[in-house]
């Protein structure tokens, strides 16, 4: 496969990276279920991967790499526990739900317990800011430093957040094991919200110079993929997975060669990942209308699908998109949805119809640069330069992202120029 000069070292490295990607969450969930030590299991599995990298390079990749890693990590936990006993320390154990017990024995032959791990990480008794971080760390194996970069917090802050969350799980007795009945559906809704939040943190961050951290948004997509694999019948999970796939498929076209933001209309659609779009469209085709949060996600995904289906921006069916947004607004009553609906209506009808839908949003979104940016853009197109200029100024003042602010500044300059030209033309006429 590889043409590099030293396959004996690169092949094991690739194997370690691949197995880390594919098996981390499954191995960790099994280790956690069997040792009931969240803290030790995570460290031990990290240690096992580090050891694999060194040893496999020397001895070659073992026949069953996952089993090798599991056994190594498990032995490490057992050794740590023994040392604690000798030192007279007693650490609290993770609670396993009574009606649910982990299967034992051969890790190659074990069921997938990642659903339980995701539900544990996203438990509503944990602080919201910790849930997705913990899920990325434990289920996907994203490092604490990477998660800090995703959420734009200092690495020490993120490390402390993860430690506190694990401590609460142990001390408060948050159990590993499936919740039942109404609780499961509510909990899955919560998990989907959490994953979508993590995804958007990487996709459209509000601050910083780093416009798009596609690699880390990709970890959130992977989390959605894992969840879909382990709960294929959950409508909210299916819709979430389709939605993030569709949005993530645009990642290469979203940032220009100059590092600037490329708006949807100007993106080179040949650079979209059409294989991923295909997967998402198939997920949506098979999906019946749902209700509650699942339906909100499905409608959002259908809107993204409208964009994904057409080869050029000019072919966009804005009437269909505006109708989906109207449905979504009725369901979610969200001001942001109304803002997006205004954009769609402006495209489907005219800018003035869009502007009319923005009336009343200032109370809810007055501090959000997006409201002012949209109003500026629609007013600009409607030829209302004074409103456009004031709105773009308000948007620039409120936007925390350097790259996005630069884009807004360019639009502001264009409005000022157009207004001046219109003024001159007006002056010439009079």
């Amino acid at each position, binding site marked *: 496969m590889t043409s590099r000069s030293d396959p004996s070292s690169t092949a094991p490295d690739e194997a370690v990276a691949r197995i880390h990607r594919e098996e981390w969450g499954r191995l960790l969930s099994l280790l956690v279920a069997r040792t009931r030590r969240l803290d030790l299991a995570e460290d031990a599995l990290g240690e096992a991967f580090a050891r694999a990298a060194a040893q496999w390079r020397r001895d070659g990749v073992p026949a069953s790499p996952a089993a090798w890693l599991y056994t190594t990590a498990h032995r490490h936990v057992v050794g740590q526990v023994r040392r604690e006993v000798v030192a007279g320390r007693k650490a609290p154990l993770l609670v396993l*739900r009574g009606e649910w017990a982990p299967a034992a024995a051969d890790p190659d032959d074990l069921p997938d317990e990642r659903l339980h791990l995701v539900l544990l990480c996203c438990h509503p008794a944990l602080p919201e800011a910790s849930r997705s971080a913990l899920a990325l760390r434990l289920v996907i194996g994203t490092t604490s430093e990477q998660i800090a970069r995703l959420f734009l917090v200092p690495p020490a802050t993120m490390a402390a957040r993860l430690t506190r969350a694990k401590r609460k799980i142990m001390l*408060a007795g948050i159990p590993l094991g499936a919740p039942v009945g109404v609780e499961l559906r509510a909990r899955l809704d919560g998990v989907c919200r959490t994953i979508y939040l993590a995804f958007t943190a990487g996709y459209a961050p509000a601050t910083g110079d780093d416009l798009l951290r596609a690699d880390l948004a990709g970890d959130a997509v992977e989390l959605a993929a894992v969840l879909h694999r382990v709960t294929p019948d959950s409508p909210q999970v299916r819709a979430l997975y389709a939605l993030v796939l569709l949005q993530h498929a645009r990642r290469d076209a979203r940032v220009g060669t100059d590092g600037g933001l490329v708006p949807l209309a100007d993106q080179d659609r040949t650079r979209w990942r059409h294989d991923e779009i295909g997967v998402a469209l198939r997920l949506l085709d098979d999906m019946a209308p749902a209700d509650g949060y699942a339906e909100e996600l499905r409608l959002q995904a259908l809107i993204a699908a409208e964009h994904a289906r057409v080869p050029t921006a000019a072919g966009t069916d804005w009437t269909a998109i505006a109708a989906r947004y109207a449905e979504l607004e009725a369901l979610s009553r969200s001001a942001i949805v109304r803002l997006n609906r205004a954009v769609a209506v402006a495209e489907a009808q005219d800018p003035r119809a869009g502007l009319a839908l923005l009336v009343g949003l200032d109370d809810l979104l007055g501090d959000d640069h997006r409201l002012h940016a949209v109003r500026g853009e629609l007013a600009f197109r409607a030829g209302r330069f004074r409103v456009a200029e004031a709105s773009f100024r308000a948007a620039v003042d409120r936007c925390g992202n350097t790259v996005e602010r630069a884009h807004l500044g360019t639009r502001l300059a264009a409005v000022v120029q157009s207004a001046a030209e219109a003024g001159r033309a007006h002056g010439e006429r009079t």
Partner: protein
Amino acid sequence: MKYFVLLAGFGELGSWDDLGPEGQEAAMQAHGAFDEACATRPDVEILSAEALGDGATATTLRTRGGDLIITDGPFAEVAEQIGGYYLVDAPDLDTVIELCRILPAYDIEIRPVLDGP
């Protein structure tokens, strides 16, 4: 594990008086149903449960600069509404949350009781 379940406030219920005779009767029945649900679960036991006097009957002690300061009323205004507590032995937090759904719609705080050394 042992859990301290603090009935911290009446929330949307307003207050005990707001409930009226019928509402109070329903609330008492809910407490009864909670006791029963705990009793039918082999892994759950109510170790202690009491209703407490209202905030006006509370006395707060604070030590400041070595001096004990005694004041009338609860330690914080938000503690005014604390109505009582349960001390419950249960296998995990989810079990306690599930059982608390049976209680009247109080605002409730759950804390684990720490294991001894």
